[in-house]
């Protein structure tokens, strides 16, 4: 594919008492299509409660980075306006959480945001086929959302491949357990937007972002090694 490569560090893995500073720090390593991934969980759609629009609104004041909100909430329609007002650039909702995805897509776009649909691991890809032409991205969860410390589910790559084949111009995002060991599988399958939490925030941030980026450039875009974005950070001279 020829889609842009975007790395989306998940702020849940950052120091949440210093969101503004952490965002500024990580954004220093951002390339054009990178973004901050915001995991909004309401304790009902998933058994975890993270943060909502008020936190995002505060964050927006301190950063110019693209804000990509992944809503793991039981009534995403209710959040469109608050998220738009909070300054979200791209809003992804779960197909399992709404009875009328088409209407929701229209509302999100109506508020000037880009829109994506997310699929839980057990949700088959064909659920989203009717909407792909209208979406900016599809998010394929590679862990069960809401629980920490899970491993990357390689079986989700079949979904990524299927979507990539049917929709060559659709951005496909993956989220859950992405790191140096698992990125190649995701890149080969066709994902171009990569969410990573602890792999980015708790390691050498610049280096690890570039490791993810290079894998997608190589296996997704088919670039030669010499054309890849150079490794950054502490490992740059290895």
């Amino acid at each position, binding site marked *: 594919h020829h889609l842009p490569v975007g790395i989306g560090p998940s702020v849940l893995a950052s120091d949440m008492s210093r*969101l503004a500073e952490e965002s500024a720090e990580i954004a220093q390593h951002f390339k054009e299509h990178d973004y901050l991934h915001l995991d*909004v969980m*309401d304790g009902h759609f998933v058994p975890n409660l993270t*943060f*909502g*629009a008020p*936190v995002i609104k505060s964050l927006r004041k301190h950063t110019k980075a693209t804000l990509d909100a992944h809503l793991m909430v*039981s009534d995403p329609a209710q959040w469109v306006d608050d998220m738009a007002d909070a300054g979200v650039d791209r809003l992804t909702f779960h197909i399992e959480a709404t009875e009328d995805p088409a209407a929701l897509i229209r509302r999100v776009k109506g508020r000037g945001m880009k829109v994506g649909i997310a699929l839980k691991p057990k949700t088959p890809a064909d659920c989203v086929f009717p909407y792909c032409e209208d979406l900016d991205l599809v998010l394929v969860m590679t862990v069960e959302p809401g629980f920490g410390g899970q491993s990357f589910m390689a079986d989700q790559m079949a979904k990524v491949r299927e979507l990539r084949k049917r929709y060559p111009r659709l951005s496909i995002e993956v989220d859950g357990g992405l790191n140096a060991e698992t990125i190649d599988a995701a890149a080969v399958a066709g994902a171009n937007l990569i969410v990573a939490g602890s792999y980015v925030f708790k390691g050498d941030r610049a280096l690890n972002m570039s490791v993810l980026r290079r894998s997608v450039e190589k296996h997704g875009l088919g670039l030669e090694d010499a054309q890849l974005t150079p490794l950054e950070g502490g490992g740059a001279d290895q």
Partner: protein
Amino acid sequence: MVKSTAVAVLATVGVACAFAPASAPSRPTSSLRMANNAWHRKDFQIAPSILSADMAKLGEEVDNAMAAGADVVHFDVMDNHYVPNLTIGPLVCKALRNHGVKNDIDVHLMVSPVDRIVGDFAEAGASYITFHPEASPHVDRTLQLIKSTGCKSGLVFNPATPLDFAKYVLDKVDIILLMSVNPGFGGQAFIPATLDKLREARAMIDESGFDIRLEIDGGVTQNNIKEIAEAGADMFVAGSAVFKNPRTVEAYTDTITKLRAELAAAQIGKALQKA
């Protein structure tokens, strides 16, 4: 987790919950019946609510508020099911503890159901956990659950919720929190009828002989805190009154100093004289 006696845990300020022994701690049924006007045995506590803070700089905001003279961090947790807003979860509480916050963290759960998240917050470092009786089908059980984690427990009363919910569990609550606005958003105005409710709660607490804090949340400002104290509150949540521009420790110190000055001028005996 270090096991300590329940009494030691309750006496410690600003330390994350440890798991107490299985039995609930015994209540001090001291002779708190006040002969005359001296029934405010506790210091007044000021608990700024981070709902109004800059959520992208929570560590700094809390540090400044505590350095400015506040006592306790008030943590408003909303899940968009019990109230129409979604704020923060246990992860953020943990981040504050990791950041180094040592003051007590007073977690107000506006969520339903309640039980599942109690453990998460205890582990994340909460000191007190309060919840709404309408949000739990088994209030007594939830109170015991909270106390079993070593945290102080409390019940929260929405403006229209009668105090009756506390009647049979006074031996299990450390805090009674009265909402003087409808929970969900900061910046609302104080509902005046809450003053009578405070007087009623104060009388109920004193009559019981139990050591229970009477907390108030919603529209508390320099202009009404004295009256609120006179009605019987001894712990004051202040959101937008404290966390506003300029967001500096100097400005926060000024605000909190003024709040304390108002409290110092409060005539506590007045409430007892009301018929």
